[in-house]
């Protein structure tokens, strides 16, 4: 539908709070915006059978994920009056306590930003070919499943 270049959403390693701050501050010149909604996914130190998750190692079918994300992006922009939409997902090993997903939407009034952000998070989890391998502290692993 659009002629725009497909945006990359993947970053190697964790998403840092300073990266998020820079992303927020770039919106100070966009004075039509009245509300920003952000979702961040953080790696939990879950316990499974007495072992603790130390990290999640993320891999993706990158080309397919970016094509799919582009479709989702266009559908969300059609559905909600948004000024901005940014999505970043980590690849590689992300430690417990670090951020692996950053979804950021902005609109003139709060509701579209909030609803679009929620819908994006649901669709990213359900539709993007990304896989998380939970690495335990003893170096064993299990593959994560979204419920």
């Amino acid at each position: 539908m659009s002629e725009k270049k497909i945006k990359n959403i993947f970053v190697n390693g964790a998403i840092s709070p300073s990266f998020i701050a820079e992303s927020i501050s770039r919106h100070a010149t966009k004075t039509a915006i009245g509300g920003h909604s952000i979702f961040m996914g953080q790696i939990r130190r879950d316990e499974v059978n007495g072992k603790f998750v130390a990290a999640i190692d993320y891999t993706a079918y990158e080309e397919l994920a970016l094509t799919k994300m582009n479709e989702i992006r266009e559908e969300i922009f059609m559905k909600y009056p948004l000024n901005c939409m940014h999505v970043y997902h980590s690849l590689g090993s992300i430690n417990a306590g670090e951020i692996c997903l950053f979804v950021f939407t902005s609109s003139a009034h709060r509701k579209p930003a909030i609803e679009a952000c929620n819908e994006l998070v649901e669709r990213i989890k359900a539709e993007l070919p990304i896989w998380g391998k939970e690495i335990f502290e003893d170096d064993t692993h299990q593959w994560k499943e979204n419920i």
Partner: protein
Amino acid sequence: MKLEIISFGKISEFIHHQQVEISNVTNTDQLKSYLETSFPELADMKYKLAVNQNIIQSNQSLKNQDVVAIMPPFSGG
């Protein structure tokens, strides 16, 4: 017919990236049977195929040189 097989997540632990030359397979349903026979672990799992980066919802014919991705349930986010 020559196909390129790629796999992801848990499935990549027992099906590696490979070129296969198979006869008697002309569509994705037949390919699934072939894969589940060759890799019995796959028969017990939920998975989807993508052909040339299009996720397959129903049976679809295959042609020489197609790239087929075998994907377990997604777990991003």
